[in-house]
């Protein structure tokens, strides 16, 4: 199987078929919109933060399968973490996905490591990181985030 096939078959499509935490919730305390102007990708991230813990997290939007799967994986991974922990994981995820870096695996990121294959398609890295930028923006009280 090619890298591309592997990426889609093993990771992306599973989350596309069974997206976790998808849909706009009834209430939230923090929200930001992630916008990738060049691709037209759009992801909304909604957080409920109670006593510094992200007690719930959801997303919706309109974008490619990579971006939607990454958001699904992120919400699963981030839920019930402290804000500080979530922001640290955001930094780690950025390190994992940095264009041109040869980081192949970061233990703390667990299943998110599957997305490292996206690095082989550099034009798509921003699809995978968009939701993370939106989450960090929401925590920091910004309304919108971009990957630029």
């Amino acid at each position, binding site marked *: 199987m090619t890298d*591309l096939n592997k990426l*889609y078959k093993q990771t992306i499509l599973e989350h596309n078929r069974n997206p976790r935490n998808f849909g706009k919730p009834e209430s939230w305390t923090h929200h930001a919109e992630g916008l990738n102007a060049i*691709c037209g990708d759009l992801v909304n991230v909604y957080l409920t933060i109670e006593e510094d813990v992200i007690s719930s997290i959801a997303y919706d939007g309109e*974008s490619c399968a*990579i971006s939607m799967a990454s958001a699904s994986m992120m919400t699963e991974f981030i839920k019930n973490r402290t804000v500080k922990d979530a922001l640290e994981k955001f930094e780690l995820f950025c390190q994992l996905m940095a264009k041109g870096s040869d980081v192949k695996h970061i233990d703390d990121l667990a299943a998110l490591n599957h997305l490292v294959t996206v690095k082989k398609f550099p*034009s798509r890295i921003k699809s995978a990181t968009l939701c993370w930028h939106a989450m960090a923006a929401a925590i920091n009280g910004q309304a919108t985030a971009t990957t630029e």
Partner: protein
Amino acid sequence: MLNNKNYRDQFPGLHQEVHGKPLVYLDNAATAQRPQVVIDAINDYYVNHNANIHRGVHSLSESATDLYENARKSLAKLLNAPSEKDLIFVRGCTEAVNLVAQTFVRSRVQKGDEILISHLEHHSNIVPWQLLCEQTGAVLKVIPMNDAGELCLEQLDDLLTDKTKFMSVVHVSNALGTINPVKEMVAKAHAKGVPVMLDGAQATPHLKVDVQDLDCDFYTVSGHKMYGPTGSGVLYGKAEHLEAMPPYHGGGEMISKVTFESTVYNAVPAKFEAGTPNIAGGIGLGAAAEFMMSIGLENIEQRDAELKSYAEQALLTVPGLRLVGNAKHKSPVFSFVIDGIHAHDIGTIIDHHGVAIRTGHHCTMPIFQYFGLAGSCRASFAFYNTEAEVDVLVGALKKAIAMFE
């Protein structure tokens, strides 16, 4: 008849592999590949004639100037302009629109006046007008389109009011391929005394363009879409307009006399060409124009028609594929969506089969807002593409669909 094989051989960029597969280049509407003669013309300037133009008495400067001015003549011939002096070298269509907006149109509009464009415009023929409207209080009006991606021309007469000061419309849509009946549109606008600019970015690579027959006031050409260099292009303008227009950029070359008190501008077209231009680009663009004329625009049009009908039929065999825009008059550009698969995923997957297409909104967001889509896949053909390449595209699309099953 056009011998496709021979012409393919003249485009070195077509003969390479992507992800181990032969390149199938179907992103010609974004930018075309360049023939060897264009690459050679650029190289020849830098190697044998490298000098600044219009300012040296030495031999190299003279030969460089000749090459540059001959390129202007080639473009005048391609467009059937009355004189090469009616052509201004620019960076591309984007600069041409901004130039006309900020010189010709800005000096004519006041608060409440109207500028008319169409729903099919590229962002480069929308945003410069919005800037002008902000500066002057003028109002932007839009000719609507229908589900086929054709303009609703029956509304044109009503949209041309006594407040309309300028109309700027695209000749051929880059997103949908629609060929607008621009000659008729120009006539309607002129009947109301409204000058017209046509965006020819996607027309010159495909159609025989005759600016005198169209009777347009301005016509824009993008070099890189018609097999010429990036950052090259020309703006055609009727001589009386170019004479009357104020300059765009100030600087060297566009003057004939400068003192600290005042400046006398140079004659047209130099008046609009401040600073050292893209000399190699202009020369390369001239070579591209000569190349197209040597093939014959009628041959290119015929080849386009063949490819268009073959590709349309082939694409419709792909399950779940829906074409966006099916204008009666269309160039070989196909925008499409596939049920349940986002355009970017398709783009990435078929790239792995060597197929280059564009995905997204193609700098025409209002078109996709009309269709309620975030974007599309776009396969855009040039005369050097083949039926076999259409088959590779269709095969790759079917494989992408299979992956999602």
